[in-house]
């Protein structure tokens, strides 16, 4: 390993970073995750911590750019140079730049996270079967609205699990339109546009207006790349056009004809011979995680290594199961020392039975009561602060509980969170993922909802699971996502734009419901995935944010679950 001349390093251990913009190649959440994992590579072996800032100046400013991107060291188009970074210091020092003429993925081809549909944002599964035909890319087949979609399992015909793929018809990113989709045609400087354009920009990014007239409304956003978008050439980001004509011959798929380097390309209009518009077809792409981990090595003070398997070797190589090479560890620990505290390797989960009777889950029709006799060791590295979206949040016995994938954390009145604890230890009848919960203020019974079922806990005794239809909720309701206690014996149950009032004593929904969430609770997102009451306020959560509403139904705070509730 090598360090920079003078052993440049940060003189503090709490390093901050900020993501200034995003690539159109991947969903923002995947990019956030790739960077967070890249920082964790170094966090695991040093005493350094990395905190993300959303505004202001951070130690490490991360950005994507193309060609001349403002620092005097231009990128070079597709391939070749992938990214660069500056050693620790003030100003541009410590920053990392990624060449957005590359195709950024997780290293194994298009990484397509879906939106909407019924797969809860799962990744596309390629190839997938739809009506007996195998698809390797998102498709608009089977739809009349032109929205590309994919299955999230191998067989749509069997599983019916799907989501929509990124496209300008679904959402935009950046800009000033809060992810609104493009409106086509739109007018820009008096000219009508039927697709995203780079006109009016010098940075090569494709954009569109999100109203019919940019000249009057100035509303715009950047277009996410479809999975069929080409890389580089002279049409970066445009989708392949099939069929297209090249040297008089018709092509219905990508081809290497006409090239000596064997690279696959396609036309982005129907006739290459007349239009000369083309680009390379999407390939495996470069792993943003691996490249970022390398660049972050630079911003922490490591220069290039001459060991081929080291992360800090200057050439890119995809590795599936990445682990930091001993040379990289030696290098970074030369600068910052080893990680203090317990071994960074998390303890292996194990189960110790204090009773010869193994705990069993109740069958769906069972109504039972039992006490757990199993001691589980939970992974302390499971950090509530790393969780973007909780399954459910609710106040139980004056402590706010945060549920996620079989674990929960508690926020005490002192404002510090504890956990994780295992849901299965405290409430063994419950599934790992619950959608909402509430404590009845009169009886102190705790109600849990997961998909179309609910359970009622009284101390260690449990009743359920029972179907939510038993409460008078509609049979086609997929889940209850939130609950707010309203006076004694009444609870509002939420799902998207509707809510119902439950008479807890009668165990039935009151007449006159559902009502519209948007009408009764103006100003909160109607697609909240968690709704709960805490200290007299109503909280509506969407992604990592919450909207807090006071008893006069005024939204008085919009903030982060992580920072403002969990105090991360």
């Amino acid at each position, binding site marked *: 390993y090598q360090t920079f001349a003078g052993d440049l390093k940060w003189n503090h251990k709490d390093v901050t970073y900020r993501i200034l913009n995003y690539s159109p190649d991947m969903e923002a959440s995947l990019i956030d995750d790739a960077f967070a994992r890249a920082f964790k590579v170094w966090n695991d072996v040093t005493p350094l911590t990395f905190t993300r800032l959303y505004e202001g100046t951070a130690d490490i400013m991360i950005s994507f750019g193309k060609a001349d991107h403002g620092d005097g060291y231009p990128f070079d188009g597709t391939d070749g140079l992938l990214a*660069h970074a500056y050693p620790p210091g003030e100003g541009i020092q410590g920053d990392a730049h990624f060449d957005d003429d590359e195709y950024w993925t997780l290293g194994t081809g298009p990484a397509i996270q879906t939106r909407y549909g019924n797969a809860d944002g799962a990744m596309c599964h390629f190839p997938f079967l739809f009506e007996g035909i195998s698809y390797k890319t998102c498709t608009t087949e089977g739809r009349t609205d032109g929205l590309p979609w994919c299955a999230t399992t191998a067989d749509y015909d069997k599983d019916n699990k799907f989501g929509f793929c990124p496209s300008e018809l679904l959402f935009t990113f950046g800009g000033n339109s809060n992810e609104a989709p493009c409106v086509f045609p739109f007018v820009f400087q008096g000219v009508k546009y039927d697709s995203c354009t780079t006109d009016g920009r010098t940075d090569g990014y494709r954009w569109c207006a999100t109203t019919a007239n940019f000249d009057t409304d100035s509303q715009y956003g950047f277009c996410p790349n479809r999975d069929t978008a080409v890389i580089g*050439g002279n049409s970066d980001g445009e989708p392949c056009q099939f069929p297209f004509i090249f*040297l008089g011959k018709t092509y219905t798929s990508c081809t290497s*004809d006409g090239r*000596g380097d064997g690279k696959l390309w396609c036309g982005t209009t129907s006739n290459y011979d007349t239009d000369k518009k*083309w680009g390379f077809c999407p390939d495996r792409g470069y792993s943003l995680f691996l*490249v970022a981990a390398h660049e972050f090595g630079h911003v922490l003070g490591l220069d290039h290594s001459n060991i081929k398997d080291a992360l800090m070797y200057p050439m890119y190589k995809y590795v599936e199961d990445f682990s930091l090479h001993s040379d990289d560890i030696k290098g970074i620990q030369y600068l910052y020392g080893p990680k203090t505290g317990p071994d960074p390797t998390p303890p292996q989960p194990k189960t110790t039975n204090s009773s010869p009777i193994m705990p069993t889950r109740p069958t769906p029709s069972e109504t039972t009561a039992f006490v757990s006799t199993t001691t589980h060791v939970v992974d302390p590295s499971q950090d509530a602060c790393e969780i973007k979206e909780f399954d459910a949040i609710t106040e139980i016995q004056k402590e706010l509980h945060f549920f996620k994938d079989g674990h929960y954390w508690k926020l005490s009145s002192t404002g510090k969170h504890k956990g994780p604890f295992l849901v299965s230890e405290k409430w063994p009848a419950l599934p790992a993922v619950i959608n909402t919960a509430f404590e009845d203020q009169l009886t102190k019974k705790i109600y849990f909802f997961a998909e179309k079922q609910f359970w009622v806990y009284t101390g260690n005794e449990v009743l359920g699971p029972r179907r939510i239809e038993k409460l008078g909720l509609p049979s086609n309701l997929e889940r209850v996502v939130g609950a707010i206690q309203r006076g004694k014996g009444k609870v509002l149950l939420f799902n998207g734009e509707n809510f119902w009032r439950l008479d807890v004593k009668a165990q039935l929904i009151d007449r006159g419901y559902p009502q519209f969430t948007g009408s009764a609770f103006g100003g909160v997102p109607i697609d909240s995935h968690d709704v709960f009451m805490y200290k007299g306020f109503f909280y509506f959560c969407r992604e990592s944010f919450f909207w807090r509403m006071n008893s006069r139904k005024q939204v008085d705070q919009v903030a982060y679950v992580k920072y403002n509730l969990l105090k991360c």
Partner: protein
Amino acid sequence: WCLPLKSVYVTFPGDVIKKMTDIQLADEYLKRYGYIDVLQKSGMQSVISTSKALKKLQKHLGLQETGTLDKRTIDAMKQPRCGVPDIRN
């Protein structure tokens, strides 16, 4: 049908930067990543410095140190990589 196919190669617009010769590519690479700059500052002749620069590059990348622009070195130069120069003043 067993006649060899006659390939037609096209210069694609926007792709010309990739059409440089191996020597041009090597020259740009050695400058971009710091191998030539350092040596030129030491006042050596460019013809010598290219060979020395190549040796330095080959050492840095774990290649056989021939000092000539062989296939392995050219292939290495065509690999995707980090833009931080390997050698700086």
